């Protein structure tokens, strides 16, 4: 894969034709709506619209589907910020501080910084995609199952250590998350585990239902308990972030772009992982980490930036190796193949005009999304003005639709309801929720990479320490655990997560 200014400029010329601009706009609009609507994620959205794109030229079709993909990343944060429903695991860190900001009457500012950070990180990610794809893709190839296992282990240990003084509760939350994911069939052997003879449990618990229950249903319960008249009592102040806040988040956006982009090159390293890591890094380097979890604007900018940079990065292995890093990109790859285009190194040689037109259209799409989303900030933030007796049942309805439409199983709605009660109890008892969520999301990948690693090493666990990249991740993870234990030993206070470290 070679970069050339001529090819990039030709790509821009193609992407700026009226037809391609129109389809990029349609893709951005549909993607934003898909991100906001419950029950339909980017994978499903692209899959549903894929057959319709046969009516338009291939380049326009792929431009539109790519726009749906990154447009959905923009829209996904809206419900997380305004009503605390993270429709995707990647929106969970955004909900932590975004919803706190909304409760303080600053939903507009949170949505605004989310759009700006998404734009900055998405564009920086595209610069990476344009200039550094060959080099970075080669680095990503050095990642095997041991490196993935070590990376995910590090992500889990970082999040547990975020629990602050409530390390034990963080560990318990992680255990419950892992436990939820172990229910059902073993991913490699198909053996039934922890199903207690219940047929519905054979399919396992879907993590989206768990997330919806923990966040949305439990949030409604908290508001119902206190007979709230509005989801947050404070008046909305300021529809946009101030210039000072945007400047304050400048470094955050650049750092989260880097984290999101580099980790996003790895197949299987979903935005769910990169957003948590970006959030954690930002909290660790902040001079005022106590603001995180209480409405820190950097706590919104970091995960949103990482989310969009990861989305851009996902196109590197897709175009360079024909390797989709997530389900939505896998559907997009299906779209490419539908048009007779085989993603991989040859794509750049046989169809350079097509590839560079798509890449150029992403720069334009990012601008379209920013221009389209900023004026919508006020509209979304006004949702909070709806009286809670009306908004509460609508939140529950969105949650039910979201949980049901994952696998079209009523069982998933019951799971969301059960985890709503679990989430309520966890909030009341000051258990951190983030470790549970991350463990649920990562468990299957963690298990698969562990099994593959042990197959490679013929059962030796040293494989996680004698390979340099895996060893470095494991060292960081162990250091993080040691630090957490040290804090725990020194602390003589009761286990409380919410007040001092939140989730």
């Amino acid at each position, binding site marked *: 894969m070679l970069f050339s200014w001529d090819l990039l400029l030709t790509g821009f010329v193609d992407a700026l034709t009226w037809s391609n601009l129109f389809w990029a706009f349609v893709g951005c609009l549909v993607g934003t709506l898909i991100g906001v609507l419950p029950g339909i994620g980017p994978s499903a959205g692209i899959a*549903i619209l894929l057959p319709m794109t046969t009516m338009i030229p291939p380049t326009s079709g792929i431009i539109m589907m790519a726009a749906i993909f990154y447009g959905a990343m923009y829209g996904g944060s809206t419900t997380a910020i305004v009503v605390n429903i993270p429709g995707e695991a990647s929106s969970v860190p955004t909900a932590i501080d975004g919803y706190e900001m909304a409760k303080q009457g600053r939903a507009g500012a949170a949505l605004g910084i989310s759009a700006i950070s998404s734009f900055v990180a998405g564009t920086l990610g595209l610069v990476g995609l344009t200039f550094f794809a060959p080099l970075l893709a080669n680095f990503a190839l050095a990642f095997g199952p041991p490196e993935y296992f070590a990376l995910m282990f590090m992500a889990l240990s970082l999040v547990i250590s975020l629990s602050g003084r409530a390390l034990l509760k963080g560990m318990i939350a992680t255990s419950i998350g892992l436990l939820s994911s172990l229910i059902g069939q073993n991913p490699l052997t198909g053996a039934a585990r922890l199903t207690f003879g219940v047929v519905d449990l054979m399919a396992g618990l879907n993590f989206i239902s768990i997330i919806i229950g923990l966040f949305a249903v439990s949030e409604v319960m908290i508001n119902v308990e206190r007979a709230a008249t509005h989801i947050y009592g404070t008046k909305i102040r300021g529809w946009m972030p101030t210039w000072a806040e945007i400047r304050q988040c400048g470094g955050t956006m650049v750092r989260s772009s880097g984290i999101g982009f580099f980790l996003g090159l790895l197949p299987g390293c979903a935005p769910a992982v990169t957003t948590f890591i970006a959030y954690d890094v930002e909290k660790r380097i902040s001079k005022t980490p106590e603001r995180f979890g209480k409405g820190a604007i950097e706590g919104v900018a970091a995960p949103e930036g990482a989310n969009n940079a990861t989305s851009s990065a996902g196109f590197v292995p897709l175009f360079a190796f024909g390797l989709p890093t997530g389900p939505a990109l896998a559907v997009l790859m299906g779209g490419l193949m539908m048009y007779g285009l085989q993603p991989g190194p040859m794509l750049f040689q046989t169809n350079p005009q097509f590839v560079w037109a798509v890449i150029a259209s992403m720069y334009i799409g990012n601008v379209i999304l920013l221009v389209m989303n900023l004026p919508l900030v006020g509209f979304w933030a006004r949702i909070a003005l709806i009286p809670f007796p*009306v908004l509460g*049942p609508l939140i529950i309805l969105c949650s039910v639709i979201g949980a049901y439409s994952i696998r079209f199983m009523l069982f998933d709605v019951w799971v969301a309801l059960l985890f709503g009660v679990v989430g309520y109890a966890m909030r009341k008892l*000051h258990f951190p929720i983030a470790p549970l969520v991350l463990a649920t999301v990562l468990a299957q990948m963690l298990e698969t990479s562990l099994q593959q690693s042990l197959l490679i090493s*013929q*059962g030796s666990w040293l494989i996680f320490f004698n390979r340099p990249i895996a060893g470095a991740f494991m060292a960081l993870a162990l250091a993080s655990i040691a630090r957490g234990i040290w804090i725990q030993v020194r602390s003589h206070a009761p286990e409380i997560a919410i007040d001092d470290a939140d989730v």
Partner: protein
Amino acid sequence: MRSQRKCDLAAGVFIAFLGAVVILAASQIRGDVEERLPPRTLPYVVGFMTFAGGVGLGVKAYRFRGKDPEILWPEKDGWVRIGVNLLLLALFTAFMDPLGMPITTGLYVAGAIWYMDRKRILTALLTGAGSALVVYYLFIRFLELTFPLGPLGQ
């Protein structure tokens, strides 16, 4: 039970019990023990983690002697409101198959709004009907999601 210490103690006992159940269930998982990672290994590890976490939390709470923070559980009215809302949600879920998504949506939304604010009868009815129409036309007709239709599907 408003004392954080007592709640932590109770939670610790419950979680340790949960861990013990998982360990017991893991011991009954069938699979080839000669595999590099036998199917019961991870459930065992997680079961022990849960058990140890529960015991640790219980012991820490039992030994705690400092100022005990209070947990803000709801008053009786609050419990009733939560209970009724959960019941409505459970009924919504239970009747989704026989009555179909649009009808249960309308009934649930209207019922829940009316329960939480008795003055908003018209709002409840209109929002319920509107939600049912959105579910039917947007999600079922336009997006073609396979939601149960109940009598509407016949």
